């Protein structure tokens, strides 16, 4: 088990122990633009997407489903208003843990702190992977990379949101999937 996974399982244990499950229905928001994100969410069932709203469209930047840990990360870290929305794509059950509790877990002992740092490092590299995704011109290459990371994406998330995540039209996505 890597250090990062170690901290994730700590987080999950804490959430299982502490929290009651909460439910939101399709179209409802966990976080809206301008809110301050104070929690980290564990998706128990259902699916969510994180999106950025521009003048012209909703750009999906992250997807979450059963087992995902998700939140509006920069707001969570900096305590600044969220730039993103998190919307339930269908009825979604989740648990949450507050930022204070996360930090408390991280500061329990030096091993935990190491694990926490390792988790942050993982997040940084994931973010770079995502950046590369967006720089790749070929749509099929973009899809391939994402499926390597999340092989079961299509079982959890409607196609049009995956298309938005990959910055392509749903038509393009279904064409390259079928070819």
């Amino acid at each position, binding site marked *: 088990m890597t250090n990062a996974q170690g901290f994730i399982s700590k987080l999950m244990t804490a959430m299982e122990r502490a929290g009651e499950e909460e439910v939101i229905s399709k*179209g409802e928001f966990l976080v*809206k*633009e301008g809110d301050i994100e104070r929690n980290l969410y564990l998706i128990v069932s259902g699916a969510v997407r994180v999106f950025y*709203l521009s*003048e*012209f469209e*909703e750009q999906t930047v992250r997807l979450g489903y059963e087992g995902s840990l998700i939140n509006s990360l920069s707001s969570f870290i900096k305590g600044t208003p969220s730039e993103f929305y998190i*919307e339930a794509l269908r009825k979604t059950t989740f648990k949450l843990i507050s930022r204070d509790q996360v930090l408390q877990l991280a500061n329990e002992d030096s091993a935990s702190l190491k694990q926490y740092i390792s988790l942050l490092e993982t997040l940084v590299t994931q973010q770079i992977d995502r950046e590369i995704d967006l720089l790749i011109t070929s749509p099929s290459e973009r899809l391939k990379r994402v499926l390597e990371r999340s092989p079961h994406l299509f079982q959890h998330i409607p196609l049009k949101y995956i298309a938005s995540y990959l910055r392509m039209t749903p038509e393009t996505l279904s064409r390259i999937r079928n070819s």
Partner: protein
Amino acid sequence: MQTNADQLIEEMISIMERSTCAVRKFKELSTGQLNYKKDPEQWSILECIEHLNLYGDFYLPEIEKQIQAHKTANPPATFKSGIIGNYFANLMMVKEEKIKKMKSPADKNPSGCQLSVTTIERFLKQQELLKLLLLQARYVDLTRTKAAISLTRLIKLRLEIRFGFLFTILKGMFFRRKSWVLRIITGNRLHPFCDQISVGININDSQFPFLPIGKIDYYIAIVCSFC
């Protein structure tokens, strides 16, 4: 002439500020209220706003392109007529696309629950962008007299075209009996440029179940911001 352009821009900015304020207030309404329709033929508040957003999707990049073009030192001599030609062509294109877009969700989903509060947010963002563009337009005016003149003409032309366009929308709405939108647009407290289409509708009409009469002004302001 330059003064005219300045005044026009000032006026548009102040109208926009009012409308931004107005639309922000919609956020206080519940999702049910935002999606409310008196009958399936009518549009909900969100559908109306989304309708304007769809136009913004087209107009804003277009306006931006033109302002950017006028910032370059030597715009090609034939540029102007080119823009106008394209503009008309695009206008027709967008219109068709637009009608298609609005029709299908309405058919599939008469309750309109596909639209959420992000529709309002998107509108507000478009307003911000439009304001920014108007501010830039003024800057171009003040610093380049030559550009200022053609820009003035462009804006006037744009307004005329927009009115032409507005008529088209009105007609479309009329045929589809989107009567309350029609009433908003043709309300008697309209932007002076809209006088030609003002028909003096009674704004106390009870088409607006959730909004006290004073808020009709807001509705008018929203639409005016796109006039």
